[in-house]
């Protein structure tokens, strides 16, 4: 770095070359590992692209065969069903937990940590805990005689319990940041006016928490639509392919059917859906913030 002339009033900020130099690693990562793969995935989706061997242009075959892929169509319905259920349950549980631990009291730090701790453990590890715990020969719940992954509905239910356990604390923490941003004076004023706890929750907490709830919903919806680990590890798509998510189909196409072109086309569909969804949600979120 050269020495700045002392006469320049705000020297560092103005110099574009230095700014570029500091931003160069970021630019390199974004270009090589993000923009380039995005361009490549579009190109791959236009080609017959086997896992091994030469690629060959075959547009639009990778796209036109999507509606004829029953596994993918089933996975779309299954993933949507899963997303709706998990988003509703996760929001409700997270909100309940956040309300339970919002006040500063003795021991509240312990409760917060206890609820959050499953979130510090990796999703793969969490999945394996449930894999063992819900195995009736090995786990502690064998006496109940419930076949936890024996039927499609039970497999989904068990997975939902796993995801609630792993992510409730994470979402609680998001809501807690919103709850703590509500000024104490607002509550005091409401109490002085004789509002009861339900009225305070309904008329003050909930409306002021709207932007935070919107953020939680966005994260939960986008995360659930892209679910993979929980089904791959815990149910392995079974029984009878009843818990195969969309991303699992992308994975199977690429690495079991050796059809990278088809997988690229499916992931383009995912991309378009996610970007559209994000755009819609961003507008809702912005609406919620300005209210």
């Amino acid at each position: 770095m050269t020495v700045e002339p002392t006469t320049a009033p705000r020297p560092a900020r103005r110099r574009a070359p230095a700014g570029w130099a500091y931003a160069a690693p970021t630019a390199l990562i974004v270009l090589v590992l993000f923009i380039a793969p995005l361009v490549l995935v579009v190109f791959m989706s236009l080609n017959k692209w086997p896992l091994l061997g030469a690629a060959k242009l075959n547009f639009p075959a990778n796209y036109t065969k999507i509606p004829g892929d029953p596994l993918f169509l089933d996975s779309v319905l299954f993933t949507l069903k899963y997303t709706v259920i998990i988003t509703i349950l996760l929001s409700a549980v997270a909100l309940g937990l956040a309300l339970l631990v919002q006040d500063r009291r003795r021991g509240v730090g312990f409760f917060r940590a206890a609820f959050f701790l499953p979130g510090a453990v990796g999703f793969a590890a969490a999945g394996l805990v449930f894999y063992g715990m819900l195995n009736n020969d090995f786990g502690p719940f064998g006496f109940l005689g419930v076949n936890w992954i024996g039927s499609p509905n039970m497999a989904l239910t068990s997975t939902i319990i796993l995801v609630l356990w792993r992510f409730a604390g994470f979402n609680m923490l998001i809501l807690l940041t919103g709850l703590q941003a509500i000024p104490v004076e607002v509550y005091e004023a409401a109490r002085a006016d004789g509002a009861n706890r339900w009225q305070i929750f309904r008329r003050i907490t909930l409306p002021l928490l709207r932007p935070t709830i919107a953020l939680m919903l966005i994260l939960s919806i986008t995360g659930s639509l892209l679910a993979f680990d929980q089904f791959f590890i815990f149910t392995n798509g079974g029984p009878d392919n009843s818990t195969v998510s969309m991303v699992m189909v992308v994975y199977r196409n690429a690495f079991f059917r050796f059809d990278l072109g088809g997988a690229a086309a499916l992931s383009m569909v995912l991309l378009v859906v996610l970007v559209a969804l994000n755009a819609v949600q961003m507008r809702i979120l912005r609406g919620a913030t300005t209210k």
Partner: protein
Amino acid sequence: MKYYSPRLALSVIFLFPLIWSGWASVQGPDGLTTANYRSIVGFGEGLGTYVTNSLTLSGMTVIGTVLVATLGGYAFARFSFPGKNLLFLAALAILMVPYATILIPLYVLLDYVGLQNSLLGLSLVFVMFQLPFALYMMRNSFEAIPREIEESALVDGAGSLRVLLSVLLPAVRPGLVTVGLFAFLASWNDFFAPLILLSDGASFPLPVAVVSMTQRTFGAIDYGVLQAGVMVMAIPCLILFLVLQRYYVRGFMSGALRG
């Protein structure tokens, strides 16, 4: 009591699976045993290999993320240059793109550049995935520092790099810890990216290696050994989280999740 009993009951429910897993990992047919841990040491390519892989991967990811995000955050907070906003938006857009959409072409791309099946290649991918959060966090950390602090140093003739290293870096340390912690937890725990980008068992990190125990086509699954594997993966995260909880929560408070 009315305050504590429901919260305690819920705490027990939330802690139970982890406690059970720890308990199951030291249980054998004849009571308490270390057999599961002794047995996992020799599993597959050897537990040492997988732990080394995971540590290498997380180490490179943490260093890379902290380095790139510190320099980038400094650039975005304190300099103006053409393309600045475009680059920042492009980095945040990483959040919008599904994991699978970007990993499928990366599998091909890393092969082109000879980084297929490489922990270095995978850690660079993790740095990219961490970038939106880390960059946002570091830019905000730099912006929160009053400009007067560095201006006196600049007037004294120090270059912008000197100012960054000696004046600003100590001030953004909490942000750095947060960014490093998130980068560690993400790279240590991630399952999907190594599953796709690594093909050789000898380069697997812990999550892929331990999950592969359940996917064996022959032989019975040893659930006790599996829970020992869970503990090996989980304990470092639990300790780090408990020690650095403050920095973790900072990541949530910063609004960086909003992207």
